């Protein structure tokens, strides 16, 4: 991986809520065409990090650079980033999946023609054609997940954040999501992938960032690792050795 090919750079990022530090001096960078897993226990700060990256929360300290452009310029980063929060795939229930996706595409400045084309492409990939024009209120969990995923990436962002994208999905959909990730990586997109499943980390990601209590505890490649037990053991060792645990 070329180090000069850096797309996303997080520099000394901190964030507190009501005096409680949720992210603490976090620094890392992710490169073009890389899929980095963000792993950590509940409350480690993953969602907060994603929300800051997506401009929903303001950083307390530090900076984020996307393609070398600092967040401090005040521009929204949504053009370059697509955020999919899998556990909470919220859609407008009275609109159809197509209307939901089209609405967000328009707000993200995608032309009508591109929207139609991309919806058709993704509908084919995720096997959504049968329910694309049905109101989302009656969708199953998997249908909602897939619709929300397409909504998050319809504007073709260069960085895609996937927060537990495979939770509750059936085998064929999981395969489709993996196919989608591989396809996006081929297009030199950057993916941040949050999960609790070591199996997913091994099968999808090339690198793992371990977050613990808002700090970056580890950053190592996972290519070549085949055993989930080995990975879990490494994570447990790192957490036990972390200063916050020893305190």
């Amino acid at each position, binding site marked *: 991986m070329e180090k000069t090919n850096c797309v996303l750079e997080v520099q000394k990022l901190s964030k507190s809520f009501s005096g409680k530090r949720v992210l603490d001096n976090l620094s890392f960078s992710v490169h073009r065409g890389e899929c980095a897993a963000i792993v950590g226990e509940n409350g480690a700060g993953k969602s907060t990090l994603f929300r800051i990256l997506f*401009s929903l929360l303001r950083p307390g300290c530090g900076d984020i650079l996307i393609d070398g452009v600092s967040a401090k310029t005040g521009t929204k980063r949504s053009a370059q980033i697509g955020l999919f929060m899998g556990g909470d795939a*919220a*859609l407008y229930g*009275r*609109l159809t999946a197509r209307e939901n996706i089209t609405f967000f595409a328009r707000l993200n400045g995608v032309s009508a023609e591109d929207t139609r084309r991309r919806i058709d492409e993704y509908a084919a990939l995720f096997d959504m054609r049968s329910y694309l024009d049905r109101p989302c209120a009656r969708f199953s969990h998997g249908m909602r997940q897939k619709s929300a995923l397409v909504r*998050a990436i319809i504007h073709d962002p260069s960085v895609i954040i996937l927060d537990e994208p495979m939770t509750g999905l059936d085998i064929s959909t999981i395969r489709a999501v993996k196919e989608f990730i591989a396809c996006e990586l081929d297009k030199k997109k950057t993916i941040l992938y949050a999960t609790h499943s070591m199996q997913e980390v091994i099968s999808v990601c090339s690198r793992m960032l371990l977050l613990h209590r808002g700090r970056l505890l580890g950053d190592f490649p996972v290519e070549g690792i085949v055993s989930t037990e080995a990975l879990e053991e490494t994570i447990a060792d790192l957490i036990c050795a972390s200063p916050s645990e020893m305190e």
Partner: protein
Amino acid sequence: MKIIITVFLKEMLEFLRDSRSVIITLLLPLLLFPAVFTILGHRSERSYVIYLRDNDDLGKQLSQNGKIIVRDAENEEAMVLLQKGDLLIEGNAPQLIITVNNREKSSIEAGALIEKMLQGGTVTTRFLFEEAEARSYLFLSILLPVIFSVIAVNAPSTAAGHLMGGEKERSTLEALFGTLTSRSLIMTGKFIAVWVIGLLSATAYLGGLLLAYSLNTDISPGALSLLTFTRGFQLFVLFLSLIFLTGAIELLFSTFASSSREAILCILPLTVLFLALSYFAQELGDIPAAARYVPVVNFSLAVRDVIAGTIDIATMARIVVLNFLSALPFLGWALMYARDEKVIYR
């Protein structure tokens, strides 16, 4: 502008597909007044208190009618008697004089009943008040300003509650505010939707009121003829401006609320406040000049003046401009709060 229209159309589409919201916002208002008037119509089967001055024979005759209670007028004045009862009859056949309090529906009904009973005799009917003044006072000048003020609060409330509180409830606000579009544009689109839905709902209320009047002409005879095109247009313009204000206040509440239910609960006290302000504006008589700059008070007084046909363009313009201007701080506050991260993660 394209974005505002996109947000507006999405909100309208969602609203129109939500049968519960459509029923609450459009259908119920349309049916409310016909239902109330029907109930009032049944209640009009009441008895009437009639004061007689020195006419025992007529008293005996009238007492045979189960709906009439006859009382002796003694030496009290007509004005005093008609505050306690419905009708005063003086003189002897064939020259009877009936005094009607034409500000009171029951008095008018009692007068009609007596005239019907005494067919053949010479009956002279005298009204306590000038006819035109009494009619507008009776049907429209007290009731409608208060009702209209409440409508102005209620009409946009469901939409306002759902448009921001509902987004939070469904967790869609995060995705919406994460888009490239500025939050100000999204909020503007939402506000226009609240305003338009509020106006549609207010129109449904007014349509229901007209329907009620046309189905129950005995409740408010002549009221429909008072609602001319000019008066209807003036009322619509007043609604347009007041709903702009109430929509802005309610959108602000909804922006702060964490769910649509919480937003609508916050809006409820506003209904009570508007009702009270409007009622006191009518009841207090001499309103201090400064109070006329309070949006609901001026709306309430203006509705009365519209019905009486005494409003002038300058007053209308002042009220409309004042209502629009009063909305701006609330809109500004809502837009400002929408930029805060607390709007999603309170």
